[in-house]
């Protein structure tokens, strides 16, 4: 590739050797798989690209694919930033990823079963008991309960990154209520609408089969004795930031989207209030956190839950997807035991890498962490959404001292990991009207049911839009890209 090609959209594109660039190799040549795509984008003028980009933005806005931002005066609607340059994963790479996330999800499921039953892994001395019993997400109410088909984490959203060594690492196993799948479909549609020409040059896997598979998974775990189950999705309501996704899933599956106030429990069976009276509900995909599910059993102040729901679940009259109490296993402290967990339950070597983790609860690790904060990322074990994270290399000396103090107050609450460098991908930056390197990660979506499993061939590539930022969560200014998995 001649350097002249870097004009136009890539005029200010600077590469940084420290990071793995998804499309340029170390010699700044375009990787084989991206060649056609790069030529197509690079042959556009900046004006052409801006027009297309604005159209894509308007399309998201008009479709109401937005989230609320609460500023000083009133709520404002914003779209999730969407980048028109897709990310490509080739078939061989994907095959490994798919096997890897499936392996993890199955191991996690076996682990949760064990934790709520015989606790063999603790007896074997591989995972310390106090890690479980001290976890805020461990639900005593789930002890000894047998969910249909033995499935706990029906829906998992595994977060992966590509490190500077070019290998994938799992960062988080989200097995409570992972969100984002609607944006996978939304991004694909937006890219099709705005730049359909680019699809002619690649043979890629569809992402539109998620909803039908989700319904099959839900139906596969119907309660005993039910012939054709009535499935619903429960949402906290229109003001929830993920409401668009809840409505999207209900619509594409073709099932009711209910709120807590639409459901009522009578004699341990769950019913929804319809225009022609009460109708029994058998499987609930809940997008409400454990503690809000049922005010009789968990948080008494929950206004979005359903009184008596947990009792109905205990009796086996309704299936909850995901099962309550899965949070015990996607805890960042448990994460560090994942290689052992996979070996223990499946007898297999882990396919995907785990980031090495130091537990501040262990004296040796704690000492190392306190001495090396400047080279580490310190995370609280139970926060979601990228909150409470300290990146050591960015901290001043007094800030490091402050972090040390916080850790020492409650070592169990913190873990530390080497600073992983997320790979970078060319991303259009409006302010400079050009593509620049931005860090990306990948969330995959895995479904487990009774005798059925499914991994969505694609995923959500999240982009940290702030220059140099490593945090990709949408709540902290992240955007996303369409993610292509090639057929061959």
């Amino acid at each position, binding site marked *: 590739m001649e350097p002249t090609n870097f004009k136009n959209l890539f005029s200010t594109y600077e590469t940084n050797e420290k990071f793995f660039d998804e499309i340029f190799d170390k010699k700044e040549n375009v990787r084989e798989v991206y060649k056609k795509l790069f030529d197509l984008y690079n042959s556009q003028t900046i004006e052409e690209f801006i027009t297309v980009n604005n159209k894509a933005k308007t399309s998201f*806005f*008009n*479709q*109401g694919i937005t989230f609320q931002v609460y500023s000083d005066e009133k709520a404002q609607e914003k779209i999730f930033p969407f980048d028109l340059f897709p990310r490509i994963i080739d078939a061989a790479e994907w095959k490994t990823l798919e096997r890897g996330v499936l392996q993890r999800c199955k191991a996690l499921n076996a682990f949760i079963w064990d934790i709520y039953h015989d606790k063999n892994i603790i007896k074997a001395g591989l995972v310390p008991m106090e890690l479980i019993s001290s976890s805020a997400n461990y639900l005593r109410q789930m002890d000894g309960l047998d969910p249909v088909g033995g499935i706990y984490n029906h829906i998992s959203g595994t977060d992966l990154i590509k490190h500077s060594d070019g290998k994938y690492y799992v960062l988080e196993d989200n097995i409570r209520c992972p969100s984002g799948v609607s944006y996978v479909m939304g991004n694909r549609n937006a890219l099709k609408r705005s730049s359909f020409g680019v699809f002619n040059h690649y043979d890629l896997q569809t992402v539109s089969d998620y909803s039908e598979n989700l319904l099959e998974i839900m139906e596969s775990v119907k309660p005993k004795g039910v012939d054709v189950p009535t499935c619903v999705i429960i949402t906290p309501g*229109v003001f929830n930031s993920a*409401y*668009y996704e809840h*409505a*999207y899933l*209900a*619509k594409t599956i073709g099932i*009711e*989207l*209910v*709120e807590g*106030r*639409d459901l009522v429990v009578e004699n341990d069976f769950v019913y*929804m*209030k*319809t*225009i*022609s*009276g*009460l109708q029994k509900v058998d499987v609930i995909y809940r997008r409400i956190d454990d503690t809000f599910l049922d005010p009789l059993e968990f948080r008494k102040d929950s206004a979005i839950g359903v009184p008596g729901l947990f009792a109905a679940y205990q009796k086996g009259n309704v299936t909850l997807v995901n099962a309550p109490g899965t949070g015990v296993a996607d805890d960042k402290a448990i994460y560090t035991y994942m290689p052992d967990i996979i070996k223990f339950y499946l007898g297999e070597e882990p396919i995907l890498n785990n980031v090495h983790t130091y537990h501040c609860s262990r004296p040796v690790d704690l000492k190392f962490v306190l001495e090396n904060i400047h080279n580490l990322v310190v995370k609280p074990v139970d926060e979601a959404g990228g909150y409470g994270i300290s990146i050591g290399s960015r901290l001043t000396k007094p800030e490091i001292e402050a972090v040390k103090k916080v850790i020492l107050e409650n070592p169990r609450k913190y873990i530390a990991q080497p600073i992983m460098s997320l790979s970078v991908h060319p991303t259009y930056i409006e302010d400079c009207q050009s593509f620049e390197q931005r860090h990306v990660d990948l969330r995959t979506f895995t479904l487990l049911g009774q005798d059925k499993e499914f991994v969505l061939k694609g995923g959500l590539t999240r982009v940290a839009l702030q220059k140099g930022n490593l945090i990709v969560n949408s709540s902290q200014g992240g955007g996303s890209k369409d993610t292509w998995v090639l057929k061959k």
Partner: protein
Amino acid sequence: MLARIANNLFWMGRYIERAEHTARFTNVNYFSSLDAPNKLSRDRQFVLRAIYEMVGEEDEDDEVLVEEEVLFNIALNSEKHYSILKCISYARENANSSRDLISNDFYESINKFYHSVMNYSKEHFVTRGLHDFTSHVMHQTTILKGKIRGTMLHDEVYALIKLGVNIERATQVTRILQIKYNDAEQVTLGKPKQLKKSFEWTTLLKCVDSFDINRRVYRRPPVQVTVLEFLMLNPCSPRTVLYCLNEIQTHITMLDPLIAHKKNTATFLIGKMRSEYKYKTVEDIQGDVKEFIAHTLDSLVEISEMLEDEYFYH
């Protein structure tokens, strides 16, 4: 179909329809008064007061209304529950809560419409934008109803929206009739001969977008009796009470085909009212027009309440 969602769909239909009538009433009254044949009809205070009455705003009799304030309240004031902006916000909120049931095409239209109203400049509206804005609202609400009919499944979701639209339309037509009837009385100082041929009948028909088609039916300028007959009892014009009652009956039957003959259900009540109006003549109501108008409004409220009890609250 969830009862809560059914309620939302019903009200979505009502708010879309209400926004349209408020827009048209304001537009027609304001512009037709500019060159009205008699002094009172041209009086700006008289017109503004009629507009306030249409949306149920209470004003003191001796209060002097400020034109810009009245127009802003009617159209864009987010603090006024009756403003067009508020109607569209409610309609879109209801659409949001039932996004999984309505078509993408319809949702995208109502969403775009909502943003266009939210972003409409207040200054432009109260000085130069009255015609532009009200036309925009009439146009967009018509598109919305077209999308409902043309892109959605004609099932219970559709039936509920149509129920809302038609109950609201029957109510608005009757209310507009009531207001303009009073206006006509005031303008003609209660002189029956003048009342019969008042200019207000033309305005009234225009307020419900029925002037042209009324002409096709009667072939002469509107007078008290033909207008009354037309708006209340014509079964073919889509903006009459009888037409709406027919629609209401069709759609309630779609919801619940089995309980049509059960005594004192909403379906029963609707059928009863429809039959009453179907076989009424203008001679029957001419004796006490005001009483008949009041009776019509009461019956519509009763039906709406009955629907709420039967379908929306469990």
